[in-house]
């Protein structure tokens, strides 16, 4: 899929997490299916747990320290994304208007990104024991890595790749248990999101140039990711502001996906 729109949100005031999850999956998800426009795929990620910053921080240094959901909307091309967000002949789409009923929209973090899958040492066998998503594992971890201000974006990606390779090499449990890795790099088309920021009343939202998704079989194996993260954060390469980075353990929910199961 060439491009996706990712929104990392927290629930609006007054909602319990259960109410929030129920609403976005069963009501908002239905709205999206009814008003699909040019969406190729729509994945919701319901947050189970997560961590913001590092153990070395005395206090939270990032602007956001609570997230409840991540939606990923996939499009064949950027123009399809625009045509869906601002559909012709539709003054206000139901999906656009629905967000305020479940999300605290002004604290959304948006990332228009392109995906690249990385090789893993031990991809899941063909047999699916029913742990979760076919072919990838039941628990997804989404790691949003804030670039250090002084680091050039092109260097940031190269340094992350080196740090990732070395951290993975130093993490035998992660090598054994991580079934799939997908890197989502922010596209520069995202620079032109003024209308979205205005719509959501977002003021100076944090910008994440990359997030990386990892899959393990279940939450029982999430220690594999923690082993990798510990090695990554000890990297000698200066590319990330770990205090403003965060990761989320999520349960994926397929809202729209025409692809046949892989298993």
């Amino acid at each position, binding site marked *: 899929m*060439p491009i996706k729109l990712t929104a990392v949100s927290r629930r609006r005031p007054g909602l319990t997490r259960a109410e929030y999850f129920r609403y976005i999956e069963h009501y908002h998800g239905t709205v999206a299916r009814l008003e699909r426009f040019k969406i190729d795929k729509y994945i919701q990620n319901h947050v189970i747990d997560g961590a913001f910053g590092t153990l070395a921080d005395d206090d939270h240094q990032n602007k956001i320290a609570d997230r409840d959901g991540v939606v990923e909307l996939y499009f064949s091309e950027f*123009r399809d994304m*625009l045509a869906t967000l601002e559909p012709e002949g539709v003054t206000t789409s139901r999906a656009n208007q629905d967000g305020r009923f479940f999300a605290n929209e002004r604290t959304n973090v948006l990332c228009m990104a392109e995906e690249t899958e990385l090789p893993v040492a031990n991809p899941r066998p063909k047999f699916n024991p029913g742990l979760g998503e076919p072919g990838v594992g039941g628990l997804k971890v989404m790691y949003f890595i804030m670039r250090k*201000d002084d680091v*050039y974006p*092109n260097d940031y990606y*190269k340094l992350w790749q080196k740090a990732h390779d070395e951290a993975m090499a130093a993490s035998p449990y992660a090598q054994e248990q991580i079934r799939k890795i997908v890197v989502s*790099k922010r596209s520069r088309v995202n620079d*032109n999101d003024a209308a979205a*920021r205005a719509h959501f009343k977002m003021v100076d939202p944090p910008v994440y140039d990359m997030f990386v998704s990892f899959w393990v079989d279940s939450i029982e194996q999430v220690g594999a990711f923690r082993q990798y993260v510990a090695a990554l954060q000890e990297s000698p390469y200066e590319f990330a502001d770990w205090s403003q980075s965060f990761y989320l353990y999520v349960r994926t929910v397929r809202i729209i996906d025409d692809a046949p199961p892989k298993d």
Partner: protein
Amino acid sequence: MITPDLSKPEWAAQKTYTQNRLDSVIKAMRPELTEAEKARPFAKYYYDEIPQPDPAHYAKMDDPIDPSEAFYPEDINRLLDVDWLRQSTEIGWCVLPNGAGYICNSILYPESTPEMIDWWFAWHPLEDLRYRIWYPPQHAGIMLSPIDRARILDPGVPMKEKNWGVVHYVTENCDCGYENIDINFRNPADMGFDMTRFDDVIATFAGGMGWAVAVQKCDDSITAPALMVHVFYKEEGGLRHRTRFWMGYRINEQNKPELCLPPHVSVPAAAVQGLARHNVKEYTRWREFLPRIYKELGGSLYC
């Protein structure tokens, strides 16, 4: 990676990303050269009288060409068909029916060689002044990232490949005000060229994808993408330089050109014409100046 030698200006020029963005506001004012810059062996070129474009050539950028005379980035391999190119419109600009901006230009360099071109594209991003002397009226500054600087200065990387994967962060006025333009140089295969034919036709190449935004950026500023191709051909009488720009296009992660304008939006004609005119002016200057500076400084990236 090679070790930086901060006693050399080529390394000492390094600034952080944040600092370079802040500096670009000052650079866009084109301040007088510092004493250190005046002491550089190439500073004299900054004070050259800048040659003006051939009036007939420049006049071809007055009005748009018929879009049917243009081609799209998906057809980039037309640049390998010299007979077809000679029959086509080679100088002009227009707004394409899909809203993208198209620019073509062609200029003959009687005294330049492919080696000069490759050297220049590796040599000039190392210091602001190197970029400024190219076209002093409108070139304000340039920066590389530390990793890209190390690649450029790595003697193990062939000169014609030094910019592959490298980003030039330039501050430039393309006749529509000063912009910060991040030019992601690519290898020709990643631009879509047919590499089974490329080396038989093309003497050398520089191209990639740029993202441009006003130096005086505000919350609503548009960051505009464009594809840029400079291809050089040996022909009787010198080296032929053909340029194409497709404004409004980017290259996606699958290495495919992709239009990313909103529906019913076109690149403003003034922006297309501005870049077309700027292109003629900067390469008119280059045509005369590159052989001179190469004779004096060519062969090394240090001076």
